[in-house]
């Protein structure tokens, strides 16, 4: 319950944080809200030698109007997403999903950037980023680059953000008026999802799944079926196609597949797809 010894660097700016990452290389980890990293460290499943604390950097905590998109700083807390008027209007699925993350304490500490950069398939917001077709802005020694959500999640707890890079901004297309649904299936109200579904219907339909494999996943078979004119019910029947869900305490793979089919159907119906 106590992390292994580590050094602590409090970054004064994004540039300062990047410099610290450059200096310490693989040994270092960014610390944002700490609500994914610190539990792992307390169990000594993660033992970074240096923590570079960026959690307090105001320069990356914002929700701004970017014209055709909402620009969200990576250090924006879940609570700020939940209560943002701009997001409620332009991309209501994001505040709605953020409101289901953990409990109020978690939502006041955890950040959007941390949630995406951690790349946990059980997290809610990566699926929302996929369904919304968000774009991630990543900054590193070579400057800034944009990564589409579909190319961002690479493997289990692995993303396109390199060890010397930092996720700085998330750009979410404005979809005011679109149909949407976020279905999160849990045992207890404040649990992680056993399976979750994010669906956004805006002409075409984006559907992504929580906890149906080692990475946050787009439900490509569902989207293809819908594009080919299938009904919501028929499209949902292929929700688990190509997925390899894991078994854990709460659900075995079969049950997860079943839940994905039921929840996708419900999400599509609610989103009007």
């Amino acid at each position: 319950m106590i992390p292994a010894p580590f050094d602590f660097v409090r970054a004064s700016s994004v540039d300062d944080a990047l410099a610290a990452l450059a200096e310490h290389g693989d040994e270092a980890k960014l610390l944002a809200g700490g609500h994914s990293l610190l539990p792992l460290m307390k169990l000594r499943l993660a033992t970074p030698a240096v923590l570079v604390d960026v959690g307090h950097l105001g320069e990356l905590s914002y929700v701004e109007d970017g014209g055709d998109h909402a620009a969200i700083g990576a250090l924006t807390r879940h609570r700020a997403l939940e209560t943002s008027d701009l997001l409620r209007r332009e991309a209501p699925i994001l505040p709605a999903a953020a409101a289901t993350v953990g409990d109020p304490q978690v939502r006041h500490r955890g950040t959007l950037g941390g949630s995406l950069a951690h790349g946990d398939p059980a997290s809610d917001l990566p699926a929302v980023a996929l369904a919304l077709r968000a774009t991630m802005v990543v900054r590193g020694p070579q400057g800034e680059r944009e990564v589409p959500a579909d190319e961002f999640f690479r493997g289990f707890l692995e993303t396109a953000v390199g060890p010397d890079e930092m996720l700085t901004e998330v750009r979410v297309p404005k979809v005011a008026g679109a149909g949407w649904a976020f279905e999160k299936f849990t045992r207890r109200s404040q649990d992680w999802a056993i399976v979750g579904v994010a669906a956004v219907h805006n002409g075409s339909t984006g559907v992504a799944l929580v906890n149906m494999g080692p990475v946050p996943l787009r439900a490509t078979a569902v989207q293809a079926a819908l594009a080919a004119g299938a009904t919501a019910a028929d499209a949902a029947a292929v929700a688990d196609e190509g997925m390899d869900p894991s078994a854990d305490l709460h659900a075995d793979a079969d049950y997860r597949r079943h839940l994905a089919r039921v929840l996708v159907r419900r999400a599509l119906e609610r989103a009007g797809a």
Partner: protein
Amino acid sequence: MSILGNRVLRREDPKFLTTGGTYVDDLPIEGALWVTYVRSTMAHARLLGIDVSEARQAPGVVDVITGADVDLAPLAPFPFIPQTMAWPWLATETVRFVGEPIVAIVTEDRYQGEDAAELVFVDYEPLPAVIDPVEALQGDVVLFPEAGTNVATGQPAAGATDLFEGCEVVVRRRIVNQRVAPCPLEGRAAAAVWSDDGRLTMWSSSQSAHGTRDELVNRVGLDPETVRVIAPDVGGGFGAKVANYPEDLLVPWIARRVGRPVKWVESRSESMVGLGHGRGQVQDIEIGGTRDGRVLAYRLSVVQNAGAYPRIGSALPMMTRMMVDGVYSIPRVEFASTSVVTNMTPTVAYRGAGRPEATAAIERAIDLFAAEIGMGPADVRRRNFIPKDAFPYTTSVGTVYDSGDYDRALDLVLEAADYEALRKEQEQRRERGDVVQLGIGLCVYVEITAAGTNGEWGAVEVLPDGRIKVRTGVSPHGQGHVTSISMIAAERLGVAVDDVEVVYGDTDEVLKGVGTVASRSIQKGGVAVHRAAGEVLEQAKKVAADLLEANPDDMVFDPVGGRFHVAGTPALAKTWSDLAAAAPGGLTAAVDLEGGGPTFPFGAHVAVVEVDMETGKVWLRRLVAVDDAGRILNPMLAEGQVHGGLAQGVAQALFEEVRHDEDGNPVTTNLADYAFISAAELPSFETIHMETPTPVNELGAKGIGESGTIGATPAVQNAVVDALAHLGVRHVPMPATPQTVWRVIIEASAPATG
């Protein structure tokens, strides 16, 4: 007008709500070292070697202790259990559960302990683990080869072969009352300081300071005169902190060895494997009777999972046996139990301790029987209740129920729930084929409180300023006893509740004590204080008579003002401070309560659940509860006990289960994986008032601490089964997780083959 029966606010709360309590971890003990236990990572293994050389060199390490260093006899089990099943203080040859302590590391601070623990290398030779108690019974893997068996103890059946003779219907089923973790918010904790004059002060997060003191005397060999145990604020126990454990009892021994104060506070991860677990029974139920609903015979055969070292958990089936009949008058009843050791955390008492298991068995059995004969569950219950004019009632196993009125409890709860309307709505949903179906579950229970622990000590003293000091042997840890005990003294002596000081949980301040266990505190501790106050009143009357030069028989006590006067002259009254000053030896009395026996609270619960037929998810929508615990001194405190109990009862039905993989590794070792219930999973409880006083004590009070748990679990489980009954479902295992319920639905809906 008496203060008893009023919703007096908790005197404890201003502190808890402002500065917070002072738990063992909060005690500022100067110079205290920290103990960290290195625990087994294997469920069953021979220890080939323990290498502590690197750990000794780690920063801040003051001492590293292995079992070879501990010169104390291992913790012997109850006399009726094979003595070879003793629990070593620190494992030396064999480990028998994941979490068993192997090494104690003493460091200057807490951080250094966990770092040094990583440098201890334990060489394990894995042995096959046995997790399933029924398998343990077969004895293919034996935990204690010297014992030659995994059986710790048992109660054989009487062996009536014709038990079910004359029954038109007999239903048999194996059900499991799963293992759960008590999860008090504060885990175990202990601190020890030896003074220069050789006296020990130990602070212990315990349900009984005196019990802990006795354990130090019996197991660590300390002289009782030199031991002071204090239970400071204790953050819950639920039975798991009644007994002590190697980790906390060793703390004073370590403090003496290192010559400095020592503290140990477990983490949640440790608590989930180190603090004892509750329940853990495999139950074979058999029930038979007539097609018109009369139950004629019932047999309950239990395999109790005692965990790796038999503790109180191994004896829980004795309590199950005492309550085997439930609220029913059944002509022929048989009970048998066997307690076996397995490679798991030892089983201990947990809220209800043996009685919830009895209730779950009979209340499931009644529903199974009702379903088989096609009769309503309420009707079958009514048909078989012990009638209210049959008390005191002696059950099939000789338990004597003091008082009860089960018909009335059921009537009240059905009316409050509007049972008929619920059944109608259920029918409509079934007809429409709704995705979300309704289930209604009943449980009518009786339980035993203050079993096996008759004595309790209480003392009352009038202070010079007229305030009252009460000492009690009960050891509150969240119940609100300061409030209820001071109400008892205040009522008797005519003083304000705030003028009563209640002292507890300190063996130097309180001569004797049993503690807060078995829902006994008011009926035993409260009664002791009530009597002691009565004695003080008598003493005072004599002193007042002397002062007023009157005959004691002419003295009148005015309970409103707390004054004595001669009949007819109230203006010339003596106050408590007058009398305390005038009494030669002061006004003081102590009562060492004996006898009185247990009491039998009862009640009826209705649970209403909704089940999502597509996903298997269950929501508890209503829980309507009649819990009759005799005379209620403070309804607010009683409701608090009922609410907490209901929550934990629901938790067992729907959420909580300690689970292991096939190698015996616990997989529910934190509160994310162990589905600990929270308020968000619960509806607002509907509690209904009913009071049937007991003749057993002068307060008329029974215990209220555990009954909510006992009634709620079967009510909720029965409701889940009821929601699926139209599919032909007769049973759903606990906890009714979404996956479990979904599988039951799938199986029931599958077209019959062949």
